[in-house]
């Protein structure tokens, strides 16, 4: 019995589901692209194939994380530029351009969101000032997160 178990382990590493990327999302990415590639007919994805995609993506993350870009610059926190450098190191440099675009988009949206929430808070404060201050102690400030770094 134990020999059989050994045989199973050799070909497939078993990773708990919690450590994998969600299958539904990966499946959506794959199926959307497939429907683009094959407009006339639907391409199916076997369950084990989907597993292959999930697993590959997970290893990709490991592989990308493993690059020592941070150590070289003696920084503790992996930032955006580190990620770009790492991508170049593992020879996925062609990802960098679209990722930069995404990043700018994200930063823009973020900035917008922040300014909007700031406005909302100011409106709130103005409203509250008319009433006798009952609850204060910076109740509106706690939502302000420091977005620049995070562990």
């Amino acid at each position, binding site marked *: 019995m134990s020999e059989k178990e050994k045989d199973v382990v050799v070909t497939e590493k078993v990773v708990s589901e919690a450590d994998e*990327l969600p299958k539904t*999302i990966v499946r959506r990415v794959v199926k959307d692209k497939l429907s683009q590639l094959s407009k006339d007919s639907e*391409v199916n994805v076997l369950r084990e194939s989907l597993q292959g995609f999930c697993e590959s993506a997970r290893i990709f993350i*490991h*592989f990308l994380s*493993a690059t020592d870009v941070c150590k070289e610059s003696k920084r503790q926190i992996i930032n955006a530029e580190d990620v770009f450098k790492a991508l170049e190191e593992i020879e996925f440099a062609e990802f960098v351009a679209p990722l930069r675009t995404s990043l700018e988009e994200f930063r823009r949206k973020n900035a917008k969101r922040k300014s909007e929430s700031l406005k909302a808070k100011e409106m709130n404060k103005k409203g509250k000032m008319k009433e006798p201050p009952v609850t204060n102690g910076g109740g509106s400030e706690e939502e302000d997160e420091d977005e620049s770094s995070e562990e």
Partner: protein
Amino acid sequence: MENNPQQLAATQPVAYPPQTPYHHLLQQQQQQLQTFWNYQRQEIEQVNDFKNHQLPLARIKKIMKADEDVRMISAEAPILFAKACELFILELTIRSWLHAEENKRRTLQKNDIAAAITRTDIFDFLVDIVPRDEIKDDAVALGGIIGSPAAASGVPYYYPPMGQPMMGRPAVSGVDPGVYMQAPPPSQAWQSVWQTGADDGSYGSGGGASSGHGNIDGQG
């Protein structure tokens, strides 16, 4: 597009061991590729919507942190990782699909993924995922003819029947414009999308790659 088959026929030297069935396949593949390169370009040029396909950041962080050397991660890093992951999955999907197409299948099997991994140099880190026996690839048999892919620069990945792991670079930028596409190659437009600014030449700057495909080269 009508130019291409003719030009292909004209530029396909006989010096190469006669590959008639593959020639046919190549034309087919090329047409398919041109079609979806166009789609790819459109996709990239669209504004990237973060809501689409957003892989869960917490999960990604967790996976990243499985590596002990990874300490602190900025808020933006997981987002980039998520997007990079998505792009990676797309790459893998395209290549796997190509293999399925070659074998006239409408179902992606594990051996398609295996073939995609084998054929692409930069996917070497994935080589352990799929057992070797999954790789049923005619190209492997032909591998001996081509020899070492080490010098591959402009050799496009979609000629696997002739020269399997010759893709030093992913399809998106590995195409030598001079080689097969005479019309403004989607790959060139592609390159300008992927690589904003100067081509850093890390993709074996254009022609002249005298790899096993030397005889096809020189279309300049």
